[in-house]
């Protein structure tokens, strides 16, 4: 009885400071943390896979013009599930480590990307716009011995 009380007192002597210094000192989240979504505008080709799987309908596609597809992210209601990152074929959309997203203006929780789709020169309909490979071809890169893709 007495000894256990003594031991408790000794534990109190040994205990150091546990409080984080957080808002005054920066703090990194652990790896694997899913924070605010970011999109790499170079990589996205407007397939709409992310919009299909998003459970909170954060991602809204609209074809505003014939060769312009607007992807809007109303990420104020994002649930950070990571499904969009999982399905994106180009890994354009990613969940960053940023968690300091508090704001006083709801418009700050909005992101928009305009993707230019390539229209077919014959029929005028859109096809997925140049991928990274097509861009390399535009600038003179040729694949295969005969040039061009077979």
């Amino acid at each position, binding site marked *: 009885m007495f000894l256990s009380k003594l031991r408790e007192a000794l534990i109190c002597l040994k205990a150091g400071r546990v409080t984080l210094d957080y808002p005054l000192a920066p703090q990194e989240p652990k790896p694997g943390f899913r924070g605010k979504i970011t999109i790499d505008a170079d990589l996205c080709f407007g397939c709409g896979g992310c919009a299909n799987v998003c459970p909170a309908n954060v991602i809204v596609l609209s074809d505003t013009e014939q060769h312009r597809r607007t992807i809007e992210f109303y990420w104020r*209601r994002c649930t950070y599930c990571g499904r969009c990152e999982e399905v994106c074929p180009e890994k354009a959309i990613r969940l960053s480590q940023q968690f*300091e997203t508090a704001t006083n203006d709801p418009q700050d929780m909005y992101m928009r990307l305009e993707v230019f789709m390539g229209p077919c020169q014959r029929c005028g309909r859109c096809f997925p716009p140049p991928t990274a490979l097509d861009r390399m071809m535009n600038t003179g890169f040729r694949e295969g011995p005969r040039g061009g893709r077979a």
Partner: protein
Amino acid sequence: MLRALCRKAFCKALWVYHANTGACNGCDIEVINVLTPYYDAERFGIKLVGSPRHADVLLISGPVTRQVTPALKRLVEAVPNPKLTFAIGSCATGGGCWFDTYNVQGGADSVIPVDFYIPGCPPRPEAILYGVALALGLVPKKVAEEKLRQETLEELAQGKCVINRESSKTAL
């Protein structure tokens, strides 16, 4: 002068009242976490009170359900002015997965005025602390509206392979 006095008073002690308006309890656990010694919000004078009549700050978590809407309106009236309202979690900021469901109002700001939004599902305790520190003016704001645009085919043909990154607002 009253405003200046309020600013000064708010810097010292924020008494918060926490209201669950249909949250899944994830956000509530994180709010409780902020009050533990590990995060220790009391060093900023933040204290949880049991009645809205004692509170300066209202923490709201959850997409406001239809049943809780009248109670929430009365709750906001019960908090004496000047007051601050925080929407905690994706549910309270924008409705979360349930933003267009029949039984929720889709976010706290569709029912009552909200001053600060803390997105996250649930937000980390650090994120909540950051939001409070933002309200106290201790840290700068780090998010802004983003508008990105890819180059057109014509621009590509002219060799302009730069992405136009225009931001309507810069982070404060």
